[in-house]
């Protein structure tokens, strides 16, 4: 059995990387990828902790929910990105500086 902290460290690393991508990427799609990385890191955490919960099975169930929600959010986000791109002719999030239509 792999010790718990191994999973946690990997997830911490992934989260950090995802965060970095989110903070710095000049392409909205890559920002999205960063967000997905962070989500995956948290899923890993959920699953790792879930091992100690045979009765309620909360970890794995919520991992599934998260995956599904993430999929949904990606779909929506991509739609938004495409729209935004049409509007601003750019994918750089720093260029999106007006909230009005």
């Amino acid at each position, binding site marked *: 059995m*792999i*010790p718990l902290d191994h999973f946690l460290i990997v997830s911490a690393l992934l989260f950090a990387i995802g965060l970095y991508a989110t903070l710095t990427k000049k392409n909205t*799609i890559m920002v999205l990828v960063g967000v997905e990385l962070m989500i995956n890191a948290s899923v*890993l955490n959920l699953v790792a902790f879930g091992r*100690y919960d045979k009765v309620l099975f909360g*970890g794995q169930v919520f991992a599934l929910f998260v995956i599904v929600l993430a999929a949904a959010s990606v779909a929506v986000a991509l739609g938004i*990105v*495409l729209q935004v791109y049409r509007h601003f002719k750019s994918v750089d999030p720093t260029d999106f500086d007006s909230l009005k239509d």
Partner: protein
Amino acid sequence: MAIELFVFYFLAFIAVGSAALLVAMRNIVRSLFLFFLTLFALAGLYVFALADFVALAQVIIYVGGVLVLMLFAFMLSNKTLLNDVKEGTFGLPRWPALLVVILLGTIMGYTFLQFASAPPQWIRDAEQENRIITTTDNTVHYLGVNTMTRYLLPFELVSVFLMMALMGAAHMARKGGKS
């Protein structure tokens, strides 16, 4: 045990390594493929956490769904979006962000290590009362039962939400839009 650990490290290395690489890359298409690799490796890690169904879901939904969606969105869209491939393989790091991220990562890692050395009460209880999932357990069975009983309400909510989201996405991605 040793082989297991080795495979775990290998997968973890692939996951983290390709994630780091994808962040450092400038070429988006390559980055996305690296992301694909990360997700696959992560699925492997889930298996090691004895969550085989989640791993499966990961592969199907993420790898099969999300990523393909991304690639399609990327490739089907305007050409300039695709041409957004800058020269140079790696970009320069952005120092403030990198610093903050490293700091956060360190804090997280530190906390987790603390965590492992002094686990919370419920984990210790679980260990003592032998409530840990073992390799012989049929997790899919438990999952199914739990979803349909204890977590039924959330499950339904999620499915409704999913439907709304997909509809919204389809609406938004329509060519032309309203304005």
